[in-house]
């Protein structure tokens, strides 16, 4: 594998999971032996940050001497150079497919699309789930059928490589000397491992979330939301670590000459009071329960209308990082089994 990564680095910028003192993070790597393909579960922040950065310069503006406004779009910078991101787990691959539906669907986002087209995704299947993994219940893992250019599976003494696209095939075609043809047993071995992982996750005995949207709609005014919002610290960590959260705000920053400046877009969180603040100063979701609900309803209800699927890939990041230890699975379980249903009335 180091040889393969080394060769990739000759032609591409390499992004991979790197072990730091804080955990494992996706980073640009300059030495391929820094790439840690044995990491368990998921990185702290999802690979989303390389396609939709936390702070992104969109364009610079400038009034020239004649008073005309000129715009320099940073899209040109974005389109330079090809990248390969290795070690993306199935949940994160699925999350990119969710983001694709949002950013390349009805409204095409050139920044995101350019980065996606510039970047090859080399996936990596899991040999073991982490404590909070629940991909099986939302249909995003542990096996995955699409969304990758190459898919690696660690079989102990070697990696099984599945080619998922034309671009992925090219990557292997020019390096055939380091690949051997896979045997049927290797493929079976991978299936066995993935089944094992799936069974491990199934042990959690969670209900099926496929029809959760209807139950959620019924319980829109349930007491559950008040209870949880008393616990929720509204810090926004769940949003920022979520691989599918995609809300942002726009900010302009002038340069000292005041005649030029830049426009940024910055990740935003539906837990912040300012999230629904409009120009007049009005805030639509003033109370905490309404903001606590928003994340869950967007993921499991509104998203179905928007993009045809739920926006949760079961990575478990939001559960792991929550300082108040609110578990989205507990919330959903409680919605399904507990609590008295109060019929919602919309006026």
């Amino acid at each position: 594998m180091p040889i393969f990564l080394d060769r990739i680095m000759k032609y591409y910028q390499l992004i991979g999971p790197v072990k730091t003192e804080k955990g494992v993070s996706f980073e640009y790597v300059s030495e391929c032996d820094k790439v840690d393909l044995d990491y368990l579960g998921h990185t702290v922040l999802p690979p989303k940050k390389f396609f939709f950065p936390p702070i992104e310069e969109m364009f610079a503006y400038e009034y020239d001497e004649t008073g005309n406004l000129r715009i320099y779009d940073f899209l040109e910078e974005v389109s330079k150079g090809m990248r390969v991101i290795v070690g993306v787990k199935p949940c994160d691959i699925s999350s990119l497919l969710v983001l694709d539906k949002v950013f390349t669907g009805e409204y095409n986002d050139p920044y995101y699309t350019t980065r996606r087209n510039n970047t090859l995704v080399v996936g990596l299947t899991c040999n073991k789930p982490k404590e909070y993994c629940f991909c099986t219940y939302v249909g995003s893992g542990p096996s995955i059928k699409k969304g990758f250019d190459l898919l690696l599976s660690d079989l102990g003494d070697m990696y099984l490589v599945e080619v998922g696209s034309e671009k992925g095939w090219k990557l292997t075609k020019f390096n055939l000397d380091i690949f051997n043809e896979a045997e049927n047993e290797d493929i079976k071995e991978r299936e066995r491992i993935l089944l094992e992982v799936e069974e491990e996750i199934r042990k959690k005995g969670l209900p099926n979330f496929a029809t959760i949207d209807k139950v959620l709609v019924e319980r829109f005014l349930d007491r559950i939301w008040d209870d949880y919002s008393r616990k929720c610290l509204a810090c926004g960590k769940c949003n920022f670590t979520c691989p599918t959260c995609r809300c942002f705000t726009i900010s302009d920053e002038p340069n000292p000459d005041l005649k030029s400046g830049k426009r940024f877009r910055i990740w935003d969180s539906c837990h912040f009071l300012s999230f629904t603040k409009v120009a007049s100063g009005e805030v639509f979701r003033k109370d905490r329960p309404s903001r606590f609900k928003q994340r869950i309803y967007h993921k499991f209800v509104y998203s179905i209308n928007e993009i045809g699927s739920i926006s949760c890939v079961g990575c478990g990041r939001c559960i792991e990082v929550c300082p108040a230890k609110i578990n989205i699975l507990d919330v959903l379980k409680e919605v399904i089994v507990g609590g008295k249903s109060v019929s919602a009335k919309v006026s």
Partner: protein
Amino acid sequence: MNKIRIGIFSLSSCEGCIVQILNLEDILLNLLKKFEIESRILGTQNRTESYDIAFVEGSVMSIDEEMELKKIRRMSKFLVALGECACHGGNFLVRDFNVGEILERFPGSETWYSNPIDRYVRIEYYIPGCPIDKEEFFTVFKSLLLEKFPEQISNTVCSECILKENNCLIDKGIACLGSITRGGCKAICPTFNRECYGCRGLSDDANVEGLLQTFKEKNIEPPTHLTLITRREGRKT
């Protein structure tokens, strides 16, 4: 270009926020070239009639300072509270505790006040933090030159901390206030394994009770100054 007059004033404080402004030396020199900014840092002599923007750091601790502040207000188009002391009363609020002992040691101190400046005058903008973040100051400064008010930062320190992919200090049993504290500091303390002590004040609709509950569940002793923070924020409203 009209001459833009800037005043920078200091009430009771450690003057650390002004040091932060001076730390912008390179940019400031550039600005002085372009705008002929007239500034009165610390000096109070030769005052002009009016200021376009006045920055005030420090909290009001005496009647003299109250008068001074009101005078600055009358002379200024925009008034910006600079730093923790001006925004929330700052560490001088410690005075609220153990008053008896202070009175014994410093006779006459019963005449002191320690209040955020918006208790006395109208404030156009707040730049919180102890000390202020010099980049945030500069951003606000540029916006004010354009007569524009930037949105008051409303995220939490937690949300900036996770962008640095830090491990949670609460998980390590440390009483970090990042989840209820207004962001903008780029989570500098937790990044260096120091708990957030809330110097930027409470975030919008901060869930203090929720955090206390979390601390309780994890057997974390809440920091004593949390009472101070909640009390001073209670004063503001």
